[in-house]
């Protein structure tokens, strides 16, 4: 469904490309994690997937980026917004500022899509329940904590039911409980395999739990790409400044200290670690 062919992008007045020769094919319904060190091009990839590159950020673009057969460069942001949802890192700036309650904030995108009021009400109620926001539905979005604002931002995008959901470090301001809620909600919406999720995330344990596939970026290039189990256990992640999950690290240390003789792919989740150490 998502196809990048030799896609490169350089921001205006920059000498080094932010994305260089990206080759990616992400099928419909896949939960794809993106990891990389700072400046690896993760956010730029999110902007490209949602059309902000090249429609919002000018610069030099080459190669092809298609989503659902539609060429992104040829489609306006207004049209793309109905099909591709983007959740940003900073929750405060995602609040529209034009609505006075969480319920209305979640409805804002649906109003822009021109949905009937009944449909808006139904979708808003569903998403408020899914993101556990029903209790604060009548509060002002500006009075919420950072974590709550981020959940509202995610709910606002989820309500629009995009075919592709792109999330740029959505849990960076959330506590462990909030992070769990976000991933559980994502898991729920992707269960029917109708929504494709691309998520940039530093919390590798969560990616290990939910991602089907992980793409590793370094200096704007895809340096690793494969099933989460394989990529997140790879020793190469440490050299890229990303690190591995605590379970992989524990298993690798045990092997190194000869406490354990089992070989093969290292565990990346708690469940796998339990089986590994048994």
């Amino acid at each position, binding site marked *: 469904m998502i196809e990048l062919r030799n896609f490169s992008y350089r921001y205006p007045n920059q000498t080094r490309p932010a994305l260089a020769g990206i080759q990616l094919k992400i099928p419909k319904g896949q939960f794809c994690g993106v990891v990389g060190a700072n400046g690896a091009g993760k956010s730029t990839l999110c902007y490209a997937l*949602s059309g902000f590159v090249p429609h919002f950020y000018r610069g030099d673009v080459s190669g092809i980026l298609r989503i659902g057969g539609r060429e992104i460069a040829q489609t306006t942001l*207004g049209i793309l917004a109905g099909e591709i949802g983007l959740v940003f890192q900073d929750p405060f700036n995602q609040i*529209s500022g*034009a*609505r006075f309650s969480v319920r209305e904030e979640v409805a804002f995108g649906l*109003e822009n*899509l021109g949905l009937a009021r009944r449909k808006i009400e139904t979708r808003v109620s569903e998403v408020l329940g899914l993101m556990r926001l029903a209790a604060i539905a009548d509060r002002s979005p500006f009075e919420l904590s950072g974590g709550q604002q981020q959940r509202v931002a995610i709910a606002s995008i989820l309500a629009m039911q995009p075919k592709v959901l792109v999330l740029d470090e959505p849990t960076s301001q959330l506590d462990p409980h909030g992070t769990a809620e976000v991933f559980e909600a994502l898991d729920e919406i992707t269960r029917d395999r109708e929504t494709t999720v691309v998520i940039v995330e530093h919390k590798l344990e969560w990616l290990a739990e939910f991602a089907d596939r992980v793409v590793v970026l370094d200096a704007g290039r895809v340096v690793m790409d494969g099933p989460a189990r394989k990529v997140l256990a790879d020793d190469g992640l440490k050299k890229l400044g990303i690190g591995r999950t605590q379970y992989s690290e524990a298993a690798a240390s045990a092997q190194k200290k000869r406490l354990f003789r089992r070989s093969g792919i290292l565990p990346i989740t708690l469940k796998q670690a339990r089986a590994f150490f048994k």
Partner: protein
Amino acid sequence: MAGNTLYIEKDSSLHRLHPLTKLSVTLFCLICAFTLPDLLWLLAVYLVILLPPAALGGLLRPFLKSCVTVMTPFVISLTLIQGFFTGGETILLEVGRFAFTAEGALAGLTAAARILLALGGALLLMLSTRPDRLMLAFTQRGLPNSLAYIVLTALQIFPSFQKRAQVILEAQQARGLETKVGVVGRMRLLLPLTGPLVLSSIVDVEARAMALEARAFSRPGRKTSLQVLYDSRGQRIMRFGLIVLSLGLIAARMWLIFYD
């Protein structure tokens, strides 16, 4: 209260009125304030047109409180200034060379009543109408969405802007910036305080513009609303009546000015 507004949430028939109906009452009061000839007429309109709806909306107390708070300095200053300097035959008080006259005091009170009526009309609208509902009424009648958005965000973003300014001030103080200084020192402080505030606000504008695009704000075509504005034939007649009355008052005032 909704954002940085005066709105007070209540479930009343006043609150449920179409925002344009309430706006037409506000505009009518404003026109009355500038066209009605004397104090009694002004007070009569205030008592008959503004107080009953305020009571009906459960807003009498905040309405009167706001009126008194805002009007007290006006009443005192206008009455004193006009009483002493307008002149007149009925002297009530003499202070040295200055005489405080009844005619002057009446002119001062009339001027204050004009302000009270205009203020009261606006206040009733603000206390009983959510700004987003008012903007929705406008956009339904052709106001561009982007313009309505600017008005609504201005109401909500300002407190956040103040909060950020406070954070920057504290951050600069933590770095040793002395803020308890004289006037010249305060002028020098402006750069380290406003610089980060302006720059971070510019960055915010870009981020918020992107967030709006992600929410299909620029999508072409019809937009809908979760909010429902109830209108009725009675309200439409009332709005029409108020417009006719307002035009009549303006015409009468013009006639008095030019032909009396």
